[in-house]
Each structure stands twice: as structure tokens, then as C-alpha cells.
């Protein structure tokens, strides 16, 4: 497998994304909502509170809220991944691309990287802002860094990449069945429903929101990733694309 071919496809797509305003806005707006507005309102409401109150708010509200970044990492690829595949369909540029000597897997990897890199980058940007804001507000009161803790590191380095890649693979499958970018984005975003369920379960205490609980989520995501990668590879085959993709 020539990874250089995949990288050529990915960099080409990234060059195109830079010119798509809605992709740029999505990559900025959603992380800002997750990392500035949500913690910002909570932190502002804590101004003048005691150290004990702030500590409780961090543990009971902000740290569980950090799980939202798993969802964010799944939402962003549905925006970008849909363009990556449907955009090629709409511009009818898939056939000349498929005529190149790259293998199906090399092309698929390139397209997936193009959706994965900006999504994970924007999610991590949101994570850094979230942690920075939280610590900037609480350090003077708690005299220690509230974040990152071990659980948030597991989320950042395990759960987020797995959720992101699952969403990218799901975009491939969705793209094979629809012709419209908006429809693909809407269908692609369905991937967040199980993640939303996990978030709600952890919020109500049914699912532990500690390291153990996060590791369970990561393990489930890993299995889902493996299954979805097989489905995506089965979908992304030259003949399938040229003759069966809508």
C-alpha cells in the first residue's frame, strides 16, 4: 500500500476544503460552542463562589461535560466527510480519480484522512480552549489544575480519535447511498445518537463517568470502528462506486 498516494488525495481534498466556507465555519463554530459557550456560562455562574462549590461544579458538571467532545469529534466528520465523497460525485470527478493506479484502499484512506485531520484538529482545538478556560477560571480558587485529569486524557487520546474515525467511515457508507451533500450530512450525523445516549447515561449516573466508564466507551467504539471499516471498505470499491452508487 502506497501511503504517499493516500496523502496526495488527502492534501488535494484539504486544499478544496479551505475554499468551502461552510466547512470552515463548521470547524470553527461548533468547537467554539462546545469549548467557550458551554463552560463559559457555568464558570461565570460560579464567580464569587467558595472553593468547595467550585470544586463540586468542576467534578459534577464540567468534567462530565468534557464527554461532549466525543460527540463533537463525531459531528465534524459528518460535515466534511459528506463533501469528501458526495462532492466528488456531484462534480463527477470520481471516474478519473478511480482511473488512476491507486488501489481502492489507498483512495479510501486518503479520503478518510482528509475528513479525519481537520475534524480531529478542530476538536483538539476545542479541548485546549475548554481546558484553558476552565483552569484559568478555577486555578486561583482551587490552587491546582482541574483539567486535564486521567479521564480527560483517555477521552482525548482514545475516545475522540475512535469516535472521529467511526464517523468518517459512516460517512463513506452514507455517501454511497445519497447524492445530496445536505442529505449525507443529516444522515451522517445520526452517528452521534448512540454517543448522545452514552452522554445522557453518564449524566444521569447510569454509566460511570470515570476512567473505567470511558475505557468501556472506548472499547465499544473500537469494535464499532472495526466493523464499520469493513463495511466502508466493502462499499468503497471501484465497480461498486461506478455502477451502484446513486
Amino acid at each position: 500500500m502506497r501511503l504517499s498516494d493516500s496523502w496526495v488525495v488527502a492534501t488535494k481534498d484539504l486544499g478544496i476544503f479551505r475554499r468551502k466556507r461552510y466547512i470552515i465555519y463548521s470547524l470553527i463554530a461548533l468547537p467554539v460552542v462546545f469549548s467557550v459557550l458551554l463552560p463559559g456560562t457555568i464558570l461565570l455562574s460560579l464567580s464569587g463562589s467558595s472553593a468547595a462549590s467550585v470544586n463540586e461544579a468542576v467534578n459534577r458538571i464540567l468534567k462530565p461535560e468534557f464527554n461532549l467532545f466525543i460527540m463533537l469529534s463525531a459531528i465534524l466528520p459528518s460535515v466534511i466527510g459528506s463533501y469528501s465523497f458526495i462532492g466528488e460525485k456531484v462534480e463527477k470527478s470520481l471516474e478519473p480519480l478511480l482511473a488512476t493506479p491507486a488501489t481502492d484502499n489507498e483512495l479510501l484512506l486518503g479520503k478518510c484522512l482528509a475528513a479525519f485531520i481537520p475534524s480531529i484538529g478542530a476538536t483538539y482545538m476545542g479541548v485546549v480552549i475548554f481546558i484553558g478556560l476552565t483552569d484559568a477560571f478555577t486555578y486561583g480558587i482551587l490552587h491546582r489544575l482541574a483539567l486535564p485529569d486521567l479521564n480527560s486524557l483517555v477521552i482525548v487520546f482514545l475516545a475522540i480519535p475512535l469516535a472521529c474515525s467511526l464517523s468518517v467511515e459512516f460517512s463513506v457508507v452514507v455517501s454511497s447511498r445519497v447524492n445530496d451533500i445536505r442529505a449525507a450530512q443529516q444522515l451522517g450525523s445520526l452517528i452521534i445518537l448512540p454517543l448522545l445516549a452514552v452522554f445522557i447515561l453518564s449524566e444521569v449516573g447510569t454509566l460511570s463517568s470515570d476512567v473505567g466508564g470511558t475505557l468501556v466507551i472506548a472499547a465499544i467504539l473500537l469494535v464499532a470502528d472495526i466493523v464499520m471499516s469493513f463495511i466502508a471498505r466493502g462499499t468503497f470499491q471501484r465497480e461498486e462506486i461506478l455502477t451502484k452508487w446513486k
Partner: protein
Amino acid sequence: MIDAQDLTKRFGNVTAVQNLTLHVNEGEVFGFLGQSGAGKNNTIRMLSCLISKTSGNATIDNYQIGNRDDQLRIRELVGILPENVGLYEDLSAYRNLDFYGKMYHRTDQQRREAIERLLKMQGLWERRDDLVGTYSKGMKQKVAIARALIHDPKVVFLDEPTANLDPESAKTTRDFILELKKERRTIFLNTHNLDEVQRVCDRIGILKTSLIAVGSPDQLRNSLWGRKTVVHLTSVDDKILSAVKGLGVRNYETVGNNKIVIDVNDPDVDNPAIVREIVRAGGSVRFVTELRPTLEDIYLRLLKNGSASAA
């Protein structure tokens, strides 16, 4: 260069291409004609390893299209201009071509040189950095042709290369095809433009799910119509017709009262004898021409009859 033997493609119960047997020589411009849905596109897709064959065999430069290892080699050998130009509208012409150059593993220098040569040839070098989305249809078509040639392919599949082009650009493209021929590249030209076929193709194949005829335009013309000589006279009378009949020709008919159309085997041999006999019978010959059905006549008759008259 291209060899197909009983090549067949089925989609479920629908047969798209049936028992296609074909040989295209290196350096030949081969015109592929047929109605929409005749299987031309699927043939090109099979030959360029984009879709699999159902049965039969085909090779490109001795590489088997059904062989997994050979498929990548075939894709390196082949350049394709698909029906839809399929360019990246948010990239410049230069970046479009550079991307494909990279995908075909061309070095930086090879890409630079090829892009400059092809865009200058197509008259687009000055606009190389403009987004393709700002180009006219004809300009996009030119970029797509350049893309098909970016990796210096030995075999080029061109699907309607002059569609969307103005007459001047169409002529430039036809001349370009002939240049490619001089470079010994094999051109497989999928088109509905019979005039274009007449101008650039060495041989043509007419497809109607299966190949119903193949040969040079002259060979097909002769196999369908035979060769006919038209003798233009000041007037035709019974004595002249008797003289023509006496020559033992296969068939003849009068048109109006001053023309005789005569079936001949070899005009170079038969025409002098015909003229001599007519003059001897008292006829006054104004001039002699050959009746040549157009390629359109050939094409339509073959499609209507659906029978092979391959030469």
C-alpha cells in the same frame, strides 16, 4: 495493443456488452460508434479496469484486464477522458493537473514540463492559476484532455473529446489526436461525431451491445454498398444502355435522363471500358464520378440491419 476476445459484461439480467472481439493496433486511431446505451462506455470501463468483466478476455499491451496485479499496470498505461470532464472546480487548472501527475507517480520535473506543454498546446497556459470553476465548458474539456495525457499514456480512451468545443478548438483537438497518433499512441475514440471519425480514425467499430461491424470507413462502405460509378451524359438512350448491359456489369440504373449508375468491382479497371463502350454506342460523356455513401449512411444502415459486415 488492445485485444479483446468474447468480452462480455452483464449487470444482473441485463447484458451491457456481449462477446466483443476486437483488436486495435499500436499507433492506431480506432473510432467506437454506437447509440447511447450500446455498451461503449462499459467497454471502455472494462478495458481500463474500472469495472470487471463477466466473461471473455482482454489485454492491453499484453497485460490482462482481469488480473489483479496487471490492473495497476494497465491504469498506468491508459489515459481516460470520461464523458463528464470531472475536474475539481475549486482548484486551478495547474493544481488539477499536478494532482493527477502525482497520482500517476510523475516526478516534480516531469509534472512541471508536462503541464506546461499540455496547457500551452491547449492555449490555457496564461490562465493556469485560475480556478477551473471560472472556465467555460470548452476550456474545461481542454483541461480534461490534458489530464488524460499528463502521465504520457500509451493508450488513450477519449469519450467525445470535441463535445462542447467551438469549431476552432475542435480542430485543434483533432490535430492533437493526429499528433498523438504520430507518437505511436493508441487512441480509442468514443464518439457520435461521424465527421470527426472520418477525419481522424483509421478504423471504426460499430457497437450494438455486440460489435456489428469493424473496418476502415472505405472497407465498410464497400462491403455494404459495393463501388458505384456514375456516368454523366448529355442524354441516355437504349443503345447506350445496351452497351452498358453488354459489359456484363452486376447492376446498373438510370437516374433522370442523363446519368447511369453502374456497380463496378475496380473503378480503375472498369471505368475506362465503360466510357469506351458508351462512346462507341454514340454517347456523349460529360464526366465520370464515384458514388460514395457517407459514413452516416453506413452507420445508419448497419444499425438498422444489425448485421455484421465486418471487413
